[in-house]
């Protein structure tokens, strides 16, 4: 049987046990390949558990630079007996099965159509170490050494990485190196025949950085000038708040006084976190919270208050599988409707849709500007796939020239000069009123903020006309938002096309890859990547200029499809739903198959007719 052969283009999957130390070893493996100039995109598939349950780490190696999930596994590193059968079954035919051969396994446990590479990791560790914990720990580095030898990854690259990792903890260096070499030597000795999968030095990474979206968004909040963060732990958003904390400790401490230029509160729940953000926003600080679906549900009442009382608020929703507690460690784009129309009564909210960590950084900072400018809640809709997996992306950039946009804030000087101030009054025709910060002026500009209806001068009013004026103004403000939010990215198909596709967020890498696959099937597609809601008119133009437009999203109920139809009044018949929602990241294969199937079926129908 001829084994799979590929250079810089295959999928390796690690099957481990939660809390066994594999995470850092696996990341080391991925980074080593990156350092050799070959793009990788790893993904964690982990349980809602702390220790003992199965966890996987899937590394896609792609010289072409495809960062989406590919599907299928070429090399399985099967370190978890609990999941052995399933892991072995998942392997592509002619693929490679790497395992700990310390104790013999019955023939039946294997497959004839895959190549088996056994390394007695446990035995080797027991020989090298006595402390059971070290034996356990270094088993991980050891298999990295073995894999490096098999795939042709330079050991010195790995050693450099280990060096960087344990800087200052030198006593950890030596044993790690040792484990690395034991693994490598064993392979060179017992599996001299090179395997078909190879890593070869290349130059396909460029200046891109390797970071997860939560880390990036946290840094974006630092650069965007957030000073108050109130949050409540919830997977997959917790690491965002924790990253904000550590960035602030590094970048936001007054050099002289050692005092903090930020305040972070782990609140008692999500109602309190959004409440604190509302209070801070009302009082003129840039504030944000981060959460996931269940938190959004709890924040509903306050979101409505912030919409109606016009308080700047930034909410970063790292989406996970819903509804309810749902699939806490799986990914989805299923909070779109819950956020776009959050809270009772007539409301509409601004959503930003980052595609990767780079945009998580950019849009988080942008959200803080938009919140101040529009005086309303701004949602950054990321998800677990972007947020908790390291992803290769363009380096972070910051234009020092650009100042923060604090929006329409009337100053003490303006008030003193006798400028008219009506908190709920549209003076510029854009629907956005002026506000004053508490404490601005001794006798002018104070007002009473409330969630009830009011007149343009913020006086309590139950009069219909006052209410309607205000609600219409809010609609106008929402219209103003269209041109302020990140504009969509349109790509014309290389081959002529009458169809289009609309996608957004974490679907990007899969979509980019799918274009090629579709062309192979003779299908050309113009694409539009949504980057925000409300949608600019260019989105409508894109749809109207095409016969059919596929709307690709990762939820069951075609929520983005609903938003498009609802906001534009477009005939839904022209928008075809492509839905993936089993909790795994969408793949190019899925998109290609779905769109191809649809178009072929349609073609058949027309021929029949």
């Amino acid at each position, binding site marked *: 049987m001829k084994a799979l052969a590929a250079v810089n283009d295959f999928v390796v999957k690690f099957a481990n046990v939660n809390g066994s130390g594999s995470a850092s070893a696996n990341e080391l493996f991925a980074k080593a390949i990156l350092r050799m100039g070959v793009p990788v995109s790893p993904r964690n598939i982990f349980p809602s558990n702390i220790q003992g349950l199965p966890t996987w780490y899937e590394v896609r190696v792609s010289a072409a630079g495809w960062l989406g999930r590919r599907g299928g596994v070429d090399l399985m590193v099967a370190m978890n007996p609990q999941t052995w059968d399933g892991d072995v079954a998942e392997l592509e035919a002619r693929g490679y099965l790497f395992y700990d051969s310390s104790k013999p396994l019955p023939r039946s446990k294997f497959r004839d159509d895959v190549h088996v590479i056994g390394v007695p990791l446990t035995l080797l560790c027991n020989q090298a170490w006595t402390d059971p914990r070290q034996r356990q720990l270094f088993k991980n580095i050891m298999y990295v050494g073995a894999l490096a030898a098999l795939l042709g990854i330079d050991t010195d690259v790995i050693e450099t990485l280990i060096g960087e990792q344990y800087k200052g903890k030198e006593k950890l260096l030596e044993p790690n190196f040792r484990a690395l070499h034991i693994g490598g030597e064993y392979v060179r000795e017992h599996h001299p025949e090179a395997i078909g999968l190879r890593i070869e030095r290349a130059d396909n990474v460029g200046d891109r950085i390797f970071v997860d979206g939560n880390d990036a968004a946290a840094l974006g909040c630092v650069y965007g000038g957030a000073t108050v963060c109130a949050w409540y732990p919830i997977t997959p958003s917790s690491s965002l708040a924790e990253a904000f904390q550590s960035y602030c400790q590094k970048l936001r401490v007054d050099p002289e006084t050692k005092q903090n230029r930020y305040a972070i509160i782990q609140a008692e729940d999500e109602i309190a976190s959004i409440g604190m953000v509302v209070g801070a926003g*009302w009082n003129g600080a840039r504030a944000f919270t981060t959460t996931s679906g269940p938190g959004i549900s709890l924040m509903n009442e306050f979101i409505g208050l912030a919409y109606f009382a016009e308080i700047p608020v930034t909410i970063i929703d790292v989406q996970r599988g819903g509804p309810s507690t749902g699939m806490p460690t799986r990914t989805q784009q299923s909070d779109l409707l819950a956020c776009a129309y959050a809270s009772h009564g007539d409301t509409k909210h601004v959503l930003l849709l980052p595609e990767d960590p780079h945009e998580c950084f950019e849009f988080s900072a942008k959200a803080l500007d938009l919140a101040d400018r529009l005086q309303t809640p701004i949602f950054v809709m990321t998800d677990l796939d972007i947020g908790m997996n390291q992803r290769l992306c363009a380096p972070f950039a910051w234009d020092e020239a650009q100042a923060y946009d604090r929006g329409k804030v009337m100053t003490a000087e303006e008030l003193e000069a006798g400028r008219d101030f009506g908190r709920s009054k549209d003076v510029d025709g854009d629907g956005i009123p002026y506000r004053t910060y508490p404490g*601005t002026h001794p006798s002018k500009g104070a007002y009473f903020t409330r969630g009830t209806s009011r007149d343009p001068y913020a006086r309590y009013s139950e009069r219909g006309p006052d209410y309607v004026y205000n609600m219409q103004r809010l609609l106008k403000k929402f219209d103003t938002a269209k041109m302020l939010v990140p504009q969509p990215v349109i790509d014309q198909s290389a081959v002529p096309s009458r169809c289009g596709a609309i996608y957004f967020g974490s679907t990007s890498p899969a979509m980019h890859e799918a274009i090629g696959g579709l062309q192979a099937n003779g299908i050309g597609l113009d694409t539009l990547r949504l980057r925000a809601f409300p949608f600019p008119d260019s989105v409508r133009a894109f749809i109207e200029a095409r016969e059919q437009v596929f709307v690709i999203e990762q939820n069951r109920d075609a929520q983005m499809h609903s938003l498009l139809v609802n906001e534009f009044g477009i005939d839904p018949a022209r928008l075809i739903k492509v839905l993936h929602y089993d909790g795994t990241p969408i793949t190019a294969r899925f998109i290609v198959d779905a769109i191809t199937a649809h178009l072929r079926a349609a073609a058949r129908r027309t021929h029949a007719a």
Partner: protein
Amino acid sequence: MTYLAKPALHHPTLACNKIGFTRRDYEGRVSTLCAGCGHDSISAAIIQACWELDIEPHRLAKLSGIGCSSKTPDYFLGQSHGFNTVHGRMPSVLTGANLANRGLLYLGVSGDGDSASIGIGQFVHAIRRGVNMTYIVENNGVYGLTKGQFSATADQGSMSKKGVANADSPLDLVGLALQLGATLVARGFSGDKPQLVPLIKAAMTHRGAAFIDVISPCVAFNNHAGSTKSYEYVREHNDAVNRLDVIPTRAEIVVDYAPGEVIEVDQHDGTTLRLRKLDPAYDPRDRLAAVNLIAQRQAQGEVVTGLLYIDPEAGDLHGHLNTIDTPLNALDARTLNPGAEALSRINARLR
């Protein structure tokens, strides 16, 4: 703020405080509460306290939840920014506001329903965080604005106007506040301004979480069996038409008793309240002693009023968080933004 307070020219007879303001300057819109409502007396006490403390009205922020009590911030300190938030969640909004600008004074006004029922969670956590604020609960044992249902502070067994008895054991916010680590805890009565004003002043000058429970009778929803004769008639009418059709305007209940004394207060609902004013000799610096005193007196059917506990050395949330002295909302991009160079270093580390 670099501004000098410029009080308008006032009627000569109106007394000015040190910064040249008269009581008028601390007033707000006309109250829309029922005539005789205890809450209005508390607003008056707040106005008096701020005037006596020479507070610049605009340097104070007033926040509240939802309810008759929570409406009152619109009726005092018209030159202060106010925020009528959502029901039961004022503490979190106040906490956030406080984080944004440590330079202002924060006054939270709430009701027993707003704080003890829906809001007890936020009440608990705001206090244990030591937010620097004056937190006043205008406690009438009922939901006034929604027409007289029980709140969590209503006595067990008491009857609502719908003739339903309250089955739950009442929450004592003062006892809770003491246990949660509030660094100033007091109880007052809306009709006892001489006692209430100093309590509010103590709270406003205290650094840390200061809590005052103010008993504040509701005139509208306590007019059932046992009411004083003059209302009997109205009551029967309301029963007959089985709605709160007529709400008689009444005089607020005023009390006057000396420290160490116990006074019996006849309430609108015919029940009597036994208030005990703390003895001058009482030392308010012992938390456990306060807890015990309250418990013992409660056993005697007495409600203790006065400054029950204070920790003069108390710290606050900003202290815990070691935040910079400049208000966070005043920091500019230069101080907040690490800049492009730092960013490229970060990029480098991510390769």
